[in-house]
Every structure is written in structure tokens, then in C-alpha cells.
């Protein structure tokens, strides 16, 4: 049922949209997009830095090979929130499963950016700059606010992430309470996560120092408060009636790089998923009626290996899952040209085959949700004529 035929329908429908785009492209110039009124529609970008393991997020339990390749890390079928004969939500995503049932959430699976190597660094650059080359130094959200002045964006980060870097001015905000040391603790945790001895040292040291990851976005109560704080503030930026307030926010959630000790229903990945779920639910709560006009994109630079490795984790892979949530999402569906987990179907013999390009989702969101013109979209995602926007994923 997740065959190419169904998917082709998405693409064909998309094609009819873009043929117009291709014609208009020649006439495009930034001057067309003068500020008139601020857009009412909200886009929230959450980059899941570190490469989340899509196969253990939306689990293809209907594939016997899933269990064969992951003797330790596979999640038993009966534990999953099943949605059909092939896929089930990770048990840590119970609430998001509810959103899915309310048609406010969808997944695209076996999807990837055009990047085909395995460096986080370059992978994130390409995901954020919206091209197929790591060297491009402007982000696609920046090009968006540059060509369409109806949109304003803010980064909820200490610095300005690449996705918002470029010629258009973009704001950024981060809680002051999170001082340098706290920020460093976070980064150290991520950086050392795969060095068992050093990360143990760090954690132990933090406990001893009675800092106990207080400021870190980790699993404990104070950390929760921080995440809540950040979300609350983000929502109030987005809800503001001030004409200079943003309708686009870029957030990040790091820590997905589970080379070791990934866990199954508990453990590192489950903790991460809990955080993400909490962030999304909190956004819904704090956005109030604006939720109906919101789309959240959650995705990673790439996926992880189909086979588990020798340290109860997974290594850098290619195809992964992408999540859309919000009242404006035509949820309750899984978009996938599912490539199967047969050994012969794996990308380079090890990764989930990337049968879709993330830009087909981004383009649809820009065209249908943010009402950005075809020619502007072609400017925002250059050299991607062949990547057609998906249809049917935005509620109209």
C-alpha cells in the first residue's frame, strides 16, 4: 500500500502546480514581493540535530528484516502504537499518536535531503541551506524572508543557525538564564555522548557539582522547565500582534546521535522522543487558536544504519523520517514510497533507501501554507526543478 503508485499520485498532483511555477520562474524578481500584510500562517522548524533514527521513530514492524537487522534495538510489535500493517509509532510517542489520529500529524518516511555522505556537518548545512552543496552560506528560510516580506523569522538559539543566515535580517533569542556554562554543558553532553568514559565523567561531575544538568535540556524536572520556558516564549513571539513579530520560528533539539546505548522503549532515543513530544504538545497548548494555522516541521540531517552496531547503537545512515504537525497539516497519513528493508534494497547495502527528497515537503509547505509564489519557491530551493512539491499534505 505504500507503493510507488500511491505516491505517484502525490507527485502528479504536485506536478500540475509546478508546471505553472516553471513558466513563471523566468519572470521572477524579488521586487515583486513587497511587504503588504504580515502572514497569518505559522511555520515552526525544529531541526533534530545529530540524525534521528527514523526506523525506531516510525517503526516498520511489518518488515521481518527490521527484527533481523536489529536483534537488540528492534521494538517488539506489541509495544508499538500501530497504525496499519507496516508502521507503528515508537511507544514514547503516545501523545503524538493521538495527534495523528486527530489528523494533526503526519510522517514522511524513507526521506532524505540531497546529501549522500555521512558527515553531520555537511548534512546539516545542506538541510539548512536548501541546496545540494554544503558550501552555500545562506539558509533557505533566510531566502524566504528575503524574497517575501510578508514573513518574518526568529531563531530560538544562542547563535543564528545557517537556515536563517543570509542577506535578510533575522532575529534570534535565547533565554539569558542559560548562561555560557550551561550551554557548554549541553554541548559537551552531545559532543561526548558516544565516548562512554568521558560522558560518564561529565555526568558524574555534574552530579557532584550539584549542577546535575540543571540547565541542560535533559530528562529531569528543571530541564523540563527550561524546555517549557523556551516553547512558551516561542509561542508568544508567534502569537504577537506586533507587525514586526515573526510568524516563522527556527528551533533545534540536539542529541540524536545514538551510536551507543540507543535503548528501545527506554534509553537515549526514548528520552529524546519524549522531549520532542513535549515540545510539540507545549507548542499546541501555548499557541491556542493559532494552532489551526500552524505547521511544525521536524527533521534531521539524515538517518541511521538499518543494522545496529556493536555498541547497541546505530551509525550514520541516509533515509529517515520527517514529521509534520499542526492544525494546518492534513494529518493522519504516512507519505512514503517505501523501499523495503530487503538487503538488496538498502542504500549502499546499509541505509534505508531515500525514496523522497525533503524539499518536496518544504516546497508544499511554502506554496500552500505560506502562500509563497512559485517563482519565489524556485529561488528559495534553486536547481531543484525535478523535486516536485507533494500535494495533499496541507489542509486547505
Amino acid at each position, binding site marked *: 500500500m505504500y507503493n510507488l503508485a500511491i505516491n505517484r499520485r502525490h507527485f502528479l498532483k504536485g506536478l500540475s502546480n509546478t508546471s505553472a511555477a516553471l513558466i513563471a520562474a523566468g519572470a521572477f524578481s524579488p521586487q515583486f514581493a513587497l511587504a503588504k500584510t504580515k502572514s497569518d500562517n505559522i511555520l515552526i522548524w525544529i531541526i533534530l*540535530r545529530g540524525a534521528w533514527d527514523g526506523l525506531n521513530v516510525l517503526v516498520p514492524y511489518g518488515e521481518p528484516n527490521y527484527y533481523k537487522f536489529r536483534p537488540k534495538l528492534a521494538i517488539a510489535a506489541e509495544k508499538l502504537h500501530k497504525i496499519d500493517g507496516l508502521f507503528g509509532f515508537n511507544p514514547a510517542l503516545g501523545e503524538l499518536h493521538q495527534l495523528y489520529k486527530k489528523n494533526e500529524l503526519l510522517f514522511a518516511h524513507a526521506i532524505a535531503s540531497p546529501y549522500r555522505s555521512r558527515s*553531520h*556537518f555537511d548534512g546539516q548545512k545542506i538541510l539548512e541551506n536548501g541546496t545540494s552543496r554544503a558550501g552555500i552560506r545562506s539558509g533557505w528560510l533566510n531566502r524566504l524572508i528575503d524574497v517575501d516580506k510578508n514573513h518574518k523569522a526568529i531563531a530560538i538559539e544562542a547563535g543564528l543557525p545557517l537556515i536563517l543566515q543570509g542577506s535578510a535580517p533575522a532575529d534570534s533569542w535565547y533565554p539569558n538564564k542559560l548562561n555560557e556554562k550551561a550551554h557548554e554543558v549541553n*554541548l559537551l553532553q552531545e559532543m*561526548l*555522548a558516544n565516548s562512554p568514559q568521558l560522558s560518564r*565523567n*561529565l555526568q558524574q*561531575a555534574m552530579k557532584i557539582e550539584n549542577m546535575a544538568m540543571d540547565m541542560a535540556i535533559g530528562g529531569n524536572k528543571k530541564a523540563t522547565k527550561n524546555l517549557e520556558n523556551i516553547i512558551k516564549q516561542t509561542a508568544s513571539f508567534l502569537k504577537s500582534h506586533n507587525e514586526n513579530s515573526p510568524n516563522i520560528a527556527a528551533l533545534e533539539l540536539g542529541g540524536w546521535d545514538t551510536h551507543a546505548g540507543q535503548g528501545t522503549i527506554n534509553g537515549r532515543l526514548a528520552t529524546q522522543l519524549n522531549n520532542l513530544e513535549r515540545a510539540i504538545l507545549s507548542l499546541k497548548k501555548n499557541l491556542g487558536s493559532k494552532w489551526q494555522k500552524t505547521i511544525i516541521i521536524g527533521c534531521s540531517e539524515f538517518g541511521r544504519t538499518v543494522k545496529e552496531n556493536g555498541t547497541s547503537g546505530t551509525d550514520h545512515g541516509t533515509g529517515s523520517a520527517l514529521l509534520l504537525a499542526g492544525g494546518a497539516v492534513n494529518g493522519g497519513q504516512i507519505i512514503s514510497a517505501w523501499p523495503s528493508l530487503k538487503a538488496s534494497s538498502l542504500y549502499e547495502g546499509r541505509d534505508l533507501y531515500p525514496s523522497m527528497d525533503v524539499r518536496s515537503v518544504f516546497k508544499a509547505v511554502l506554496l500552500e501554507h505560506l502562500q509563497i509564489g512559485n517563482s519565489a519557491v524556485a529561488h528559495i530551493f534553486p536547481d531543484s526543478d525535478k523535486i516536485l512539491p507533494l500535494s495533499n499534505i496541507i489542509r486547505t
Partner: protein
Amino acid sequence: MARHQQATISDQSFNERLVHFWQNHFAISVEKRELKILSSAYEKEAIRPNVMGSFGDMLLAVTMHPAMLLYLDNYKSVGANSKLGLKRKKGINENLAREILELHTLGVDNGYSQQDIIAFANMLTGWSVSVKSDTGFIFNNNAHENEAQIFMQQKYNQPKMAQAKAALFYLANHKNTAGHIAKKLAQHFAGETNKRLTKNLAIQLEESFIKTGGQLKPLYQILIGHEACWQTAPLRFRSPNEWVLAISRASQNVRIKDKALIGGLKNMGHQPYFSGSPAGWPDYDSHWNSPSAFVQKWQIAKQLSRFIKTDPLAFAKVCFGENIDQHSLLAMQRAKNLRSSITLFLLSEQMQYR
């Protein structure tokens, strides 16, 4: 600090590592005040010239050096039946003899008895220090126990200095010494990541040591060529001294002020010549790799970040080229400022292990 600078600018880093290894093997610790001024002379005169020579020569140079004679009290060891001993009713001090057997050569409890320590200490009487000598070393015949000694089942009846020299020669060529040195060298370079390979390395080193009579160069050739030292996984956690050196050696843009350097090493419990024991510093990862040491190192990393006046990402690339760990780069890129970025890099796994 000259020692640090030499190891930093040297284009023979392997040689410098060996100097530090042997200095730690024949450790002196300068808590005793009079030793302070001798510590760098000791390394320069006794260790450095012999690093590419033979173990026996280094052992003799170390044992004759005033720093060692002072540190392990041999300068006041007097034969009971020597002229001085009879006159002043003084006796031997076993300290140096014991440590040579236990630490420098055979290894602890490895083929010698208390009687052997006493016999060896008697042979070493008269090995002393004097400001009147150019080298600082004198043989004081008046303090020498001028009698034949039975040491490790052999009779030593050579005159004067020749007696202890013969014993040192015997020890330097003993198979237990070969085994002891081989194990320490193998542990220092290959560590415990792959115990089987490290053991195999130690066996090869021991065989070479015995075959060549303690020639050191062949040992280094084995080290460089052996599989145990060419694993992709990191072999050793860097000691604080190695870590600071790695930082300094990384780039000409790094100029760490002496005060910060010594202060840093002191805070990390690794101030040069202050091991506090003739055994030197333990050479096991577990000694340095702990939560509290991590916190110390974090603080030092922050302080040292001040002296690295270059772009953090470029600096990281200078250190590791294409092999730079991307998890470090990611974290560095997201740091709040340049110093924080450098601090993170200094604490990365690649910088903390070798």
C-alpha cells in the same frame, strides 16, 4: 618552561615523548628544595643523552647523577666498616639500592631478597655528591664499604666503584629487567585497548632487550612497527602533560604563558618533577580519567583557550585534518563564543585520547 617549550617546538616529537617516559621511569621528585635547581640538569645530563643509547648507560648515568643521589639519600649512605663509618659510627642507607632494584631494573619482588638490597647498598656506599666536582658526583672512598659482597648469588669483590658498576651492569642485562621495561614501554604506548596485542608487543620488546643487551633503538623500532600501536581506536587517555603538549604542538598560534601552563599542570596533579614518588606517575588511564579530573581539565581548558588565538574550526582542522571528529565540530560551531568553542575542542575525545 624550557622543558615544555623543547617538547613543543621539537621536530622530533617521538624523541621528546621518550625523554618524558624515561624521566618518569627514573623519576625524581623535587619536594626536597635542594633538588629544584638540579631537576632540569638531571633530565639533560642523565636522561636525554642516553635515550637513543643503551639502558645500561642510562642506568649508570642516572645512578651517578647528584640529583638521584640526593633524592634517594645515597649521599649519606656510609659503609659500617669504612673509615668514615668506623669513625662516626654511621651506616648504610638502603633507599637508592632498593629503588634501583624495585623500580629501575628488576621490578618489585622480582628475584631479589632483603639481603641482596643490603649487599647492593653496601656496594653503592661512597657514591656521593660534592660541589667540588664538575659533574657534582664524587666517589668517596672513605665512605665505601670495601668488602666483597654476595649479591644475587654472585660474589662481587671488585675494588671501589667498579663493584657497584658491575652490579648495575648485571642488573641492566637481567631478563627480569628486560621484562619489566618491556611491560612499561608497551603499556605506555599501546595501553589496554587491546590487551592481547599489548602483551604480544611486550614479549617482542623483552626478546629484543635480552638479545641486544638493552639497546634502546631496536625497542623503539618494534614500537613503531607493531600492530598494537596502529589501532584505529584511541590507545591511551592523555596524561595532563601530554594533553597540554598536544595543545601547544598543534599550532604556532598557541603560546601558553609559563605561569598558566605550570598552574594548569599543578591543578591537574601533573606538575613536572612533582610526582611525589620515586615510582613517578602511574601510567594507567584510570589514574587520570575520572569525573573530578574532568572538571579540573574543563577549567584549565577555559584558561588555556585564551592563548589560542586562531579560528576554532581552523585550529581543529590543523590538529586533525580530514579526520577531525564531526561531533566536535558540530558542538564547536554551536558554542556561544570563540573561547567556548576552543574549550569544547580541547575537551573533545580526540584531544583527550591519543
